[in-house]
């Protein structure tokens, strides 16, 4: 029983470390930021997830007490990783890319158009001018 637990914990640690390594290697190797963003936000999150699950199993089986902190950390990381990725991509788009360089969408990129407040202001102005 002890051996199975140790095997499981060791496997999870090694898996998590390999995932983190692959994510960082991808960030080093890809050609531009939009592809570079892809590697760490997925792989590194999985790497930390592996380490956290390993720690949880370790303290549950070999030390004999349940710890909730890992769930808290992994939940926080899984919630915030997409937000940071989105923010980095958005800041990069606004600073380094022009709307012409982006692939076409049906109704354009909303992040480049005016804010809803300005749009409604313009709309109300045009409707009053019609009257």
């Amino acid at each position: 029983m002890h051996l199975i637990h140790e095997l499981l914990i060791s496997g999870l640690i090694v898996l998590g470390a390999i995932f983190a390594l692959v994510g960082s290697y991808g960030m080093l190797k890809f050609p531009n930021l939009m592809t570079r963003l892809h590697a760490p936000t997925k792989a590194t999150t999985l790497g930390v997830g592996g380490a956290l699950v390993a720690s949880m199993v370790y303290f549950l089986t070999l030390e004999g007490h349940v710890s909730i902190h890992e769930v808290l950390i992994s939940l926080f990381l899984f919630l915030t990783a997409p937000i940071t990725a989105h923010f980095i991509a958005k800041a990069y788009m606004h600073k380094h890319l022009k709307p012409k360089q982006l692939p076409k969408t049906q109704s354009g990129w909303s992040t480049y158009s005016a804010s809803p407040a300005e749009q409604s202001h313009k709309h109300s102005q045009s409707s009053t001018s019609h009257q």
Partner: protein
Amino acid sequence: MIDYALHFGFFALSLALLMNIWRAIKGPTDMDRILAVDTMVINLIAVIILYGIYEKTTLYFEAALLFAMFGFVSTVAYCKFILRGDVIE
């Protein structure tokens, strides 16, 4: 056996951290540097947790949680600064 796995984990994560530092130094744009620092924080959380297993103590989880929070807040603040030229408007 766990000790061997932990040593491998420390080695791999140190290598990953070195790669992140290299990207933070080299990074052609400022966003590359922000991404590198964000990834560095996440890798460092993994290192702290593995060190907690190594020392057989749950003392380091608070440090990991604080690191996660400050990493997120600093990345968002950097991106907001680059987007709007100000952190809190």
